[in-house]
């Protein structure tokens, strides 16, 4: 690896310059000639039948250019999967949550658009609403969607067999239930969309997305126009974190308004809309029953999880599976049974989020700590006894080729001083460890692979085309870094065209942590193919075999005699003069089990690689206020190979903030009759610069045999394990295993008080006994 020029270096990101100068354009920054302002009218009721919508007054308001309702949608229902098509982009019959889309307007300016919304008269018949998933599941009659009995949207059942037999054999069994509230992304950029139909009747759309091709297909279906006429355009994106994976009703409404008016339309969400009407993380109730042998090895586990899915399916089958999958990847289990239920309620729609299943994951690790406590071993030991090893198959039959889970544990333990501190810290001072694993990709069927095209320009510089999108994590830099490395050019010689459905090929998108593994891989192969063409021409000029050549710093040279060289620019020009193509393509399709399906067949190769991470956290708890001061977080992840440590560290640090500091201490939603009462940044507490602890980053490399240069998912295992590390540390500090997340001061104080009361009772009982 040492002969690389750019790969493995701390290369600063190519997109940063435009961003620090304020030049990078995000969707809300766009201005097109004649552009109108779009706004969405939303349901004020959590569950209501729509009896009539009268738009006449709104349409008569001067400055209003169009009003659209469900009547304009031809009743099209959308869903990520054929069996989850339950959502209309504008509701026709019923509104199912406070915020559901009922109409849209386009007007000359914002003020007029807002006045028009008020003039749209919607007649509702309020229906009984259900906000509690357990109540929803118990009901046979109060159905949110008529064709889903008991309001069960998705049921994932996984069973490896032998669960009962292994519980019989177990030395110790525990059953514990863990709760977690909903959380939100709070992307810096509120959702926005600009749409217009161009002179060729092509639909052009700009919006934050985690994969432009995930947006173009549903728009093509809804408008009944071919895919090549839907152009999702490249635009800077202010964060995604799992919440911008799918089509948003606003995309459709904006396009519909653009079609009706013949003008470009822009919809910019308020902060409240971004919270309520995009996606949220699922609230969940999880019961883990775990049986271990005398040494603490897990023989059997039964996990049952009830997820509050909100009003529609969204990525439901994926969301219902991923918490379990992360656990089965991280830990060996002799046998396991999982029942995951995603249940409809009259609340906003839930989707994937960076720490997906914090209640599930923290439950697994808290229970391991409980078991370790019972067996008299420490939390590190019990994890090492159960940790995933390379060459294993997961419970659902995915082969794990590269895995350095143990190394992440050992290195984090050493750096944090865990062994020296465990059991020896003063009262209300604690340390905890979390370990987890994340998929590098999901089974994506037709969209599972990525293709890249590279064209050389006559000045010796190259244009690289890739469907990979950058939500902020550094994907664009990753593509440029790989292309420049393989072509022997400098980063500034590469012009990247990406995330644009008109010019770039289909790609899985960034939401399954697969951009480097698949999209980066495709660019690498395209660049290798391009280089091969150049080498053939250069070899003739230099009178050597092509295999003797290498490329670096804009030169092609003989490896054993670097003085013997030719500029790449010259090779390109010679090629063109000799009627030889210098362009190339490359593609990568991960070898996954195409028969694997989230609900019907959750077995087989899930993806080609898995990442593994450990986070150790040290905290102090104030027993009077319940406030947690985090002293240090140590994050170690097996990333396969570090293409760019500078960017990786940023992913680790961001993961500790969102997964641990925010995810475990402050971030959750509060509700009143289905209305989210903390949808703004003022009420929803995200971590600030002054809250964050010192973070130690440890990059562990296992060199994945399939990944480009050995790389795989990087950063999300930290978001997951940070949540677990934080919860473990707080539990350790107060001497109570906490089971409700996040760990807010009220819960911490209640736990301390309960413990003190218990101790007092015990002391009194002891005294009585002594007497």
């Amino acid at each position, binding site marked *: 690896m040492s002969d690389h020029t750019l790969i493995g270096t701390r290369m600063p990101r190519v997109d940063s310059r435009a961003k*620090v100068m304020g030049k990078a354009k995000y969707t809300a920054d766009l201005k097109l000639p004649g552009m109108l302002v779009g706004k969405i009218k939303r349901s004020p009721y959590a569950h209501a039948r729509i009896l009539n919508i009268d738009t006449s007054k709104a349409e008569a308001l001067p400055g209003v250019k169009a009003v659209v309702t469900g009547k304009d949608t031809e009743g099209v229902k959308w869903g990520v999967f054929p069996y989850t098509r339950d959502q209309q982009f504008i509701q026709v019959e019923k509104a199912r949550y406070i915020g559901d889309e009922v109409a849209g307007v386009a007007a000359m300016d914002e003020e007029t658009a807002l006045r028009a919304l008020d003039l749209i008269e919607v007649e509702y018949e309020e229906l009984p609403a259900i906000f509690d998933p357990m109540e929803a599941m118990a009901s046979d009659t109060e159905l949110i969607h008529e064709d889903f009995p008991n309001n069960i949207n998705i049921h994932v059942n996984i069973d490896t067999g032998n669960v009962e037999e292994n519980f019989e054999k177990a030395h110790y069994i525990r059953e514990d239930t863990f709760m977690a509230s909903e959380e939100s992304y709070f992307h810096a950029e509120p959702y926005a969309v600009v749409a217009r139909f161009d002179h060729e009747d092509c639909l052009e759309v700009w919006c934050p997305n985690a994969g432009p091709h995930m947006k173009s297909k549903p728009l093509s279906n809804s408008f009944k126009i071919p895919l090549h006429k839907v152009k999702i355009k490249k635009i800077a994106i202010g964060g995604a974190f799992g919440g911008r994976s799918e089509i948003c009703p606003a995309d459709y409404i904006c396009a519909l308004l653009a079609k009706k008016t013949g003008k470009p339309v822009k919809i910019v969400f308020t902060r409240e809309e971004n919270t309520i009407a995009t996606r949220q993380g699922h609230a969940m109730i999880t019961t883990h029953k775990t049986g271990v042998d005398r040494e603490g090895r897990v023989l059997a586990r039964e996990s049952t999880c009830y997820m509050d899915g909100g009003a529609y399916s969204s990525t439901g089958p994926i969301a219902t599976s991923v918490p379990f999958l992360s656990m089965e990847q991280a830990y060996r289990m002799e046998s396991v049974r999982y029942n995951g239920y995603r249940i409809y309620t009259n609340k906003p729609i839930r989707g994937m989020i960076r720490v997906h299943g914090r209640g599930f994951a923290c439950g697994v690790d808290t229970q391991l700590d409980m078991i370790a406590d019972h067996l008299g071993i420490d939390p590190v030991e019990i994890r090492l006894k159960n940790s995933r090893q390379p060459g294993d198959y997961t419970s659902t039959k995915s082969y794990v080729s590269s895995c350095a889970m143990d190394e992440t544990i050992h290195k984090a333990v050493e750096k944090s001083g865990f062994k020296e501190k465990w059991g020896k810290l003063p009262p209300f001072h604690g340390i905890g460890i979390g370990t987890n694993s994340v998929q590098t990709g999901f089974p994506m069927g037709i969209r599972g692979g990525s293709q890249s095209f590279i064209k050389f320009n006559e000045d010796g510089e190259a244009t690289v085309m890739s469907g990979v999108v950058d939500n902020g994590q550094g994907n664009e830099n990753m593509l440029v870094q790989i292309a420049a490395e393989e072509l022997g050019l400098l980063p500034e010689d590469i012009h990247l065209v990406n995330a644009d459905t008109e010019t770039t090929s289909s790609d899985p998108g960034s939401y399954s942590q697969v951009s480097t593994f698949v999209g980066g891989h495709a660019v690498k192969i395209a660049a290798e193919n391009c280089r091969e063409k150049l080498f053939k021409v250069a070899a003739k000029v230099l009178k050597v075999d092509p295999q003797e050549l290498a490329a670096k710093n804009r030169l092609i040279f003989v490896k054993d005699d670097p003085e013997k060289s030719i500029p790449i620019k010259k090779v390109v020009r010679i090629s063109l003069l000799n009627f030889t193509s210098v362009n190339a393509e490359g593609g990568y399709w991960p070898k996954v089990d195409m028969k694997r399906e989230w609900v019907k067949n959750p077995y087989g190769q899930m993806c080609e690689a898995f990442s593994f991470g450990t986070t150790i956290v040290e905290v102090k708890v104030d027993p009077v206020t319940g406030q947690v001061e985090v002293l240090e977080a140590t994050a170690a992840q097996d990333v396969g190979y570090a293409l760019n440590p500078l960017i990786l560290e940023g992913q680790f640090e961001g993961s500790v903030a969102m997964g641990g500091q925010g995810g475990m201490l402050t971030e959750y939603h509060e509700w009143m009759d289905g209305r989210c009462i903390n949808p703004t940044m003022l009420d929803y507490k995200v971590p600030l610069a002054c809250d964050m602890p010192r973070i130690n980053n440890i990059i562990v490399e296992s060199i994945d045999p399939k990944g480009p240069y050995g790389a795989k998912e990087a950063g999300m295992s930290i978001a997951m394990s940070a949540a677990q590390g934080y919860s473990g540390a707080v539990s350790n500090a107060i001497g109570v295993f906490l089971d409700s997340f996040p760990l807010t001061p009220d819960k911490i104080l209640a736990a301390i008080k309960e413990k003190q009361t218990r101790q007092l009772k015990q002391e009194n009982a002891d005294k009585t006994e002594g007497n």
Partner: protein
Amino acid sequence: MEKIEITLNINGKPHEVTIYPNDTLLDVLRDKLDLTGSKESCGEGVCGSCTVHMDGKPVRACLTLAMEAQDAEIKTVEGLANGDELSNLQQSFIDHGAVQCGFCTPGMLMSADALLRENPKPDEKTIRKALAGNICRCTGYAKIVQAVAHAAQPQDNCCDCKSKE
């Protein structure tokens, strides 16, 4: 409401604009002057994405009326660089990997720039306090804090400090 004409001094240049008295400085910058570097994220003065300088002090442009800014020297993120030449702080943000999605970056830079003008050698605690009004969801702040600290004082032991060369 009647429109009025005012002059705003932005990044060293006067701009005459016709506004409503209730237009915020952020709306005028973004919608009327095409200075879209300043971002709206929360719209209620919490997140700091719209931070600009008025007479060297950081203010929330979303909570400031354009009329209030008439007599001030306003500086936005577009005014930090000298033409194509980035300021040390901007370069430090790039070199230290302090920019991810970039949406909070303009506000973060303006808060940090104001701090460094007042206190050229701030310690870490001071930096974290000065940036406590700017929300970032991507970075966990570590690299931003480092970028600010090293902008004025490049560190020999920092592998990302370029200006020492």
